[in-house]
């Protein structure tokens, strides 16, 4: 039986009640959730209150059709009776149905938290993974929202409630008939440290911190830097017994003037002493994110020499690009990938890389060059010619060049952890710290 006929069958009594309830009480927060894949199929729906018909998604599909790119669907779409607030992650639209006033960011932030949780549970957040684990998905959604209001969104607590599926557990469960729902309800929700469960035990106590920085740069035609910013995070993996109380201090905390914290970090201690003091959640979590923007602080680890020219009246263009490292403190620049959207008029490219391989897609006009590691003694280069389509005039659009790379064992901002101390527990933990720099949005305007 289809949903529509079903709705009609409910009769007038309910209809009247529905209206009454609409005026008397604005039902806040999230009403329903629809998951929609790239081809526009609704493959999962969940309602926290009365059921909203799927047809509400038609408004979303209309907006999707109007948008030139998938990411251009407006995140907030008003419809006659509802509002649709959506996020796009992993090529899946998570569409929340709202009935009345609610801060849009509240819903957006929550939806992202749902995606993060799925990713955390299933390793990937794809349609297949969600369909394979539909029971867990349902249980998670049930715990994350109560009557449309967020309840348990902390992954530590959720994992106590609902154990993540693993191959081993699935096998054991099938044989013994047990389940992946926790036998006990979470203890964390009851304590004053809601992000950490009680009674954690490990034989090897360890705490690892990854300082990962992404550098975003825009360099203009003349080679001067328009913007250079660093987006950094400290991700932690803490497996410590009991209720450890940690402090983490930095050699140069002054770099961190624009930060956001995991709720476990004590704001006041940071403000007073520039020390991170916290009782960590159990397992993986993001301790803080930071942003370094003053240009004199941001070193740019890669330079590019390029010469891409088209001449008026000629059907050929020249392409010449050389990469080199700078200010890397002797660390190797690895996994380098250069890509550029060439002008529409370009038919094909005939290039010669000094190392690595390149591809040019004649349909999307995307040139990408997998460089690998930069050897400072022998700089990688890509040279050759581009052919324009017959009759095409000299392109006047600007191709931009995007670069990706990684540098291990270095935080480009220079941020350095000084020490980590543990209080509250007596054992000696094993501690480690790792630094890495990656290119974020690293662009050259040509």
């Amino acid at each position, binding site marked *: 039986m289809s*949903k529509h006929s*079903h709705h009609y069958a409910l009769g007038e009594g309910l209809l009247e009640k529905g209206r009454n*309830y609409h005026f*008397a*009480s604005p*039902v*806040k927060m999230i009403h329903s959730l629809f998951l929609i894949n790239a081809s526009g199929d609704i493959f999962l*729906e969940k309602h926290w*209150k009365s*059921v909203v018909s*799927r047809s509400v998604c038609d408004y979303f599909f209309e907006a999707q059709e109007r948008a030139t790119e998938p*990411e*251009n669907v*407006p995140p*907030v779409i*008003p419809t006659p009776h509802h*509002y649709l607030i*959506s*996020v796009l*992650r992993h090529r899946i639209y998570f569409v929340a149905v709202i009935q*009345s*006033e609610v*801060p849009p*960011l509240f819903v*957006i*932030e929550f939806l*992202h938290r749902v995606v993060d949780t799925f990713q955390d549970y299933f390793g990937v957040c794809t349609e297949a993974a969600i369909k394979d684990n539909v*029971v867990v998905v*349902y249980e998670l959604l049930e715990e994350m929202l109560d009557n449309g*209001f*967020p309840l348990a*969104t902390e992954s530590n607590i959720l994992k106590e409630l609902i154990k993540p599926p693993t191959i081993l557990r699935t096998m054991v469960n099938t044989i013994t008939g047990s389940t992946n*729902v926790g036998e006990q*309800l979470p203890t964390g*929700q009851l304590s*004053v440290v*809601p992000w950490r469960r009680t009674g954690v035990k490990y034989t090897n106590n360890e705490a690892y911190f990854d300082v990962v920085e992404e550098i975003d740069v825009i360099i203009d035609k003349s080679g001067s830097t*328009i913007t250079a910013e660093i*987006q950094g995070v400290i991700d932690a993996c803490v497996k410590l017994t009991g209720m450890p109380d940690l*402090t983490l201090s930095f050699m140069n905390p002054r770099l961190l003037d624009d930060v*956001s914290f995991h*709720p476990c970090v*004590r*704001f*006041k201690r940071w403000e007073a002493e520039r020390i991170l*003091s916290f009782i960590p959640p159990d397992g993986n979590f993001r301790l803080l994110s930071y942003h370094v923007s003053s240009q004199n602080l941001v070193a740019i680890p890669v330079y590019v020499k390029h010469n891409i020219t088209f001449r008026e009246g000629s059907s050929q263009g020249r392409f010449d690009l050389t990469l080199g490292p700078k200010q890397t403190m002797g660390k190797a620049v690895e996994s380098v990938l250069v890509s550029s959207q060439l002008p529409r008029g370009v038919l094909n490219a005939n290039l010669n890389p000094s190392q690595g391989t390149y591809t040019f897609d004649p349909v999307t006009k995307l040139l990408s060059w997998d460089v690998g590691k930069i050897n400072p003694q022998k700089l990688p280069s890509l040279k050759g010619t581009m052919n324009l389509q017959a009759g095409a005039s000299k392109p*006047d659009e600007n191709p931009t060049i995007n670069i990706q790379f990684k540098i291990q*064992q270095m935080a480009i901002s220079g941020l350095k952890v000084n020490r*980590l*101390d*543990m*209080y509250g*527990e*007596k*054992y*000696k*933990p094993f*501690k*480690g*710290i790792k630094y890495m720099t990656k290119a974020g949005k690293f662009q050259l305007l040509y």
Partner: protein
Amino acid sequence: MIARGKNASDLFPAVVKNVACKNIEVKKLVYVYLVRYAEEQQDLALLSISTFQRGLKDPNQLIRASALRVLSSIRVTIIVPIMMLAIKEAASDMSPYVRKTAAHAIPKLYSLDPEQKDQLIEVIEKLLADKTTLVAGSVVMAFEEVCPERIDLIHKNYRKLCNLLIDVEEWGQVVIINMLTRYARTQFLNPNVNEALLEEGGGGDKTFYGSDEDEDEDEEEKENKAEAAAMAKRKPYVMDPDHRLLLRNTKPLLQSRNAAVVMAVAQLYFHLAPKAEVGVIAKALVRLLRSHSEVQYVVLQNVATMTIKRRGMFEPYLKSFYIRSTDPTQIKILKLEVLTNLANETNISTILREFQTYIKSMDKDFVAATIQAIGRCATNIGEVRDTCLNGLVQLLSNRDELVVAESVVVIKKLLQMQPEKHSDIIKHMAKLTDNIQVPMARASILWLIGEYCEHVPKIAPDVLRKMAKSFTNEEDIVKLQILNLAAKLYLTNSKQTKLLTQYVLNLAKYDQNYDIRDRARFIRQLIVPTEKSGALSKYAKKLFLALKPAPVLESPFKDRDHFQLGSLSHLLNAKTGGYQELPEWPETAPDPAVRNVEVPEWTKCSSREKRKEKKVEKPFYSDSEGDSGPTESADSGNMELWHHHNIFYHM
């Protein structure tokens, strides 16, 4: 099956039987099912109620809580009394977790039966007095849904809520901050009251209405304002310590990882803080621009509104709004909006240089928006008007027709401001009619030539001649403008254009589109006097060649700040259901004593500030570290050392 949207209600009896099942996973799935279908199969759902009632008495707090949670989710009217009883009992439960669940159940019951409102308000009042962080967020949420108008319930709990705030979970923080913003607007005085008075006074001088009758009133008003300003000067503004408490306790939350919390604090500062202090939110908002594109979308909309009122705040972050080629178009366009709002005499040259690179983008919608942005900068900042105009004229030779078309439309608007200076540009545009095909642009050019035909007396008739030739093939908006041009030329230069006009009017008379036929008839009556035509045709020249005011190019975000920022209503620029208006500041402050809480062991003290700090229980977690810092250190190893130990991890 439910997940795929199929109807599984036929299975109801079979499923409900399992509610007493011991297996916890089955139990949970039954709950999901029950909540989904109970409304339709009310009688059968009642069978399960006794199981939950038993659960409500369980010694384990977690079982009590989950029983209440499911019971309150079953939308069956008959059980309203049972739910009411359960909520009341749970509200006095020893366990804060159960009390939290009770708070969650309140809106559910309210939506099921609004007549329970009075009883529910009693429960809310009780729970508002709760001192645990666990309950605070949930009960304020219930307050917002059931009785947001009962601001009096907040008084006694105001200081406690401020102090607990930092330890409440993220979602609760958002709800509390938004509620306290509204509360503060009703209880405290406008900290920018002097500024507001000055602004109003300034506006009065310009005689807003401009008509003569208002003058007397204006005079009076001015006097009033002067008096008020004088009053304000005599009695300097002093911020209520409770107002200060709110600002101080929300500020650290700008560092929250949760974008919704940051936005909530930002809007609180925008609506409540003295002008000099609002600046602190800029950095946090700019930081959110690094987040997911949906977050950027919402934040940029709010920043766009803020930049209109408090431009200075975001000026240091100008570069953060520069556009990247990888930004989605909707983000690019919002950033353009912000950049345009931020433009002033000092930074305009930088911004224009930036805009120049945008024009070369491959994203044509974005290029069009950039050209419009240039137009707005040119109108707002007189110094660069000519530079902008020249830049736009250069774009007229761009190879991309859309770019040219957009430029034409914008140039038309700019030229209206000072047409006499720019007849050469009009001439240049006239030549474009041979090439440019975009209807909107053609229409704009024709309008310009018609409007300023006196500045281009030689070219105008020639353009009309060409247009007459191609009339039948033009789009409707172009046809209308051809008629317009013909009419204006006929009135100013009938010698040369009489025949052409007749010809065009005849063509239009038999056009397929009735608008065009109508217009042709209308124009003919007006400009070609016959014995039948009325008195109007005498005024034809005045009608057609009246001086038209230049269009005002202003931000679509102007005046949006009458909506509470961060709200859905603000984003859509329309009031949504359940939106609570942000009240205007009161003229005089209501009695601050209502927030005083009687504390027996505590005697009166002269300074309220001090009193407040002591009175409320200190939040357990965040405040305790100051004095009761960690005492024993299990390990005080140097980081440098374990860098070496941990060599594998480096790899």
